C-alpha cells in the first residue's frame, strides 16, 4: 500500500527526541509525529545520500531483530521511501516494547531528508493509518503495559532552543506544564487526531466559516497553522499581510496591534495571540500560516493545528477515550 505523505510536510518539522532499537541498543533521533502511524528509521542497506548523514540501523548487529520481509513504498509526495518491515526491541528511556514492528528504509531518494536533523519518524496516529497494517509503537506500549495511563501529552516551548524545544510525556500529564482546565474534544475520525472545529474568530468578529462544520487535525509533525485555501485571502486581508516569496509578510511593528485568532473547540474558545502566529526572523516578520487545498475526507474545510498552535496549548492525547485535551501551556 502506498501512503501519500509529502516530504514537504516535514519540511518545517524540527522537534525530535531519542529512541533506541535492538540489542545492544542502536540510537536514533526521531520526529514524534501525531500525523502519521509508522515507525521507521534508515538502515545500513540504504545507499541514498539522505541516509549518509543519518544514523542507520544494522539488523545483523542486533540479537533481537526479526526480518518480516514485506516491502512497502511509503510515498512522500515528491518521492518515496522504500521500507522493509522487521521487528525488534524498541526502547524509549524506561519504556521497552519487545518485537515492535518497524520499517527500515532501503532507499530514501527524497532530497529534504538529507537535510533533516532527525533520522526517522515515530508515528503516533491511529493503527488504521499504518502502512502495511503494522502495529504502532503506542499500541505496543499499551499491550505490553509500558504506560501507567493510556495517554501521552506534548509541551512545546514558546522560546525553543536546540537543546530544549519541549517535552513529550508518555503515559501521563504534567500539571506543571499548563494552567487552568483541560478542554476535551472527541476524535471525529480515528485515523488522525482529528477534532471538530466549531468556529473561527479574527479579533472580536466570528467569521462564520465553520457554520457547516470544520475539522482540525492536531499534528505535531506539522510546524505551521494551516488554513483552508478558501479563507486564506480573508485572513491575509484581516491581518494586513502581503504574499512574498518568503511567505505572508507583515510589518513587525504592527505585531502588537494585530488581532488574535480564536478557535472554538470542545465548547471552549482557544485564542492564538499574534506573538504566536507571527514569526520574526531577524526582523523579517511572516505569518506562521499556510493554505491547504484539500478538504477533509467528509468534505468539511480542514485546518491543521501544528506546532505554532501547540506552543500555546499543552495537548493531551487520550487513547482510551479517543479524545484530545487542550490547556493553556
Amino acid at each position, binding site marked *: 500500500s502506498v501512503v501519500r505523505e509529502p516530504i*514537504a510536510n516535514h519540511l518545517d518539522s524540527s522537534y525530535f527526541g531519542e529512541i533506541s532499537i535492538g540489542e545492544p541498543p542502536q540510537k536514533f533521533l526521531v520526529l514524534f509525529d501525531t500525523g502519521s502511524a509508522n515507525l521507521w528509521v534508515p538502515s545500513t542497506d540504504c545507499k541514498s545520500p539522505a541516509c549518509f548523514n543519518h544514523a542507520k540501523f544494522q539488523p545483523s548487529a542486533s540479537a533481537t531483530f526479526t526480518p518480516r520481509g514485506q516491502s512497502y513504498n511509503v510515498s512522500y509526495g515528491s518521492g518515496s521511501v522504500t521500507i522493509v518491515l522487521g521487528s525488534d526491541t524498541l526502547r524509549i528511556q524506561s519504556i521497552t516494547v519487545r518485537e515492535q514492528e518497524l520499517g527500515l528504509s532501503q532507499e530514501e531518494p527524497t532530497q529534504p531528508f538529507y537535510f533533516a536533523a532527525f533520522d526517522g519518524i515515530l508515528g503516533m496516529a491511529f493503527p488504521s493509518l499504518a502502512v502495511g497494517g503494522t502495529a504502532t509503537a503506542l499500541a505496543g506500549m499499551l499491550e505490553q503495559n509500558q504506560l501507567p495511563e493510556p495517554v501521552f501529552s506534548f509541551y512545546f516551548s514558546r522560546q525553543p532552543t536546540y537543546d530544549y524545544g519541549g517535552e513529550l510525556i508518555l503515559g501521563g500529564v504534567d500539571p506543571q506544564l499548563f494552567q487552568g482546565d483541560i478542554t476535551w474534544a472527541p476524535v471525529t475520525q480515528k485515523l488522525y487526531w482529528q477534532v471538530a472545529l466549531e468556529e473561527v474568530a479574527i479579533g472580536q468578529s466570528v467569521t462564520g466559516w465553520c457554520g457547516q462544520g470544520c475539522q482540525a487535525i492536531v499534528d505535531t509533525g506539522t510546524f505551521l497553522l494551516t488554513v483552508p485555501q478558501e479563507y486564506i485571502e480573508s485572513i491575509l486581508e484581516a491581518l494586513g499581510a502581503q504574499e512574498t516569496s518568503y511567505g505572508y509578510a507583515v510589518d513587525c511593528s504592527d505585531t502588537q496591534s494585530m488581532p488574535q485568532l480564536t478557535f472554538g473547540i470542545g465548547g471552549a474558545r482557544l485564542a492564538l495571540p499574534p506573538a504566536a502566529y507571527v514569526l520574526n526572523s531577524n526582523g523579517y516578520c511572516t505569518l506562521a500560516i499556510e493554505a491547504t487545498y484539500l478538504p477533509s475526507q467528509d468534505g468539511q474545510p480542514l485546518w491543521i493545528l501544528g506546532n505554532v498552535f501547540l506552543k500555546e496549548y499543552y495537548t493531551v492525547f487520550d487513547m482510551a477515550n479517543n479524545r484530545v485535551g487542550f490547556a493553556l501551556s
Partner: protein
Amino acid sequence: AVRISLKKGLSIRDQMRAAGVLDDFLKHIKYDPVKKYQPSQG
C-alpha cells in the same frame, strides 16, 4: 510516566534554503500540507 526532552533543530526548510536548493525543490512538487493525510492507496 516517561518524559522525553524534545530538541528543536533548524527546520529542513531553513537548511535547504541555506543550501540554496529550496526554491528549486518546491517548484517541483505541488505542495499541500493536507496531502499527508490522504488515505492509504492500495
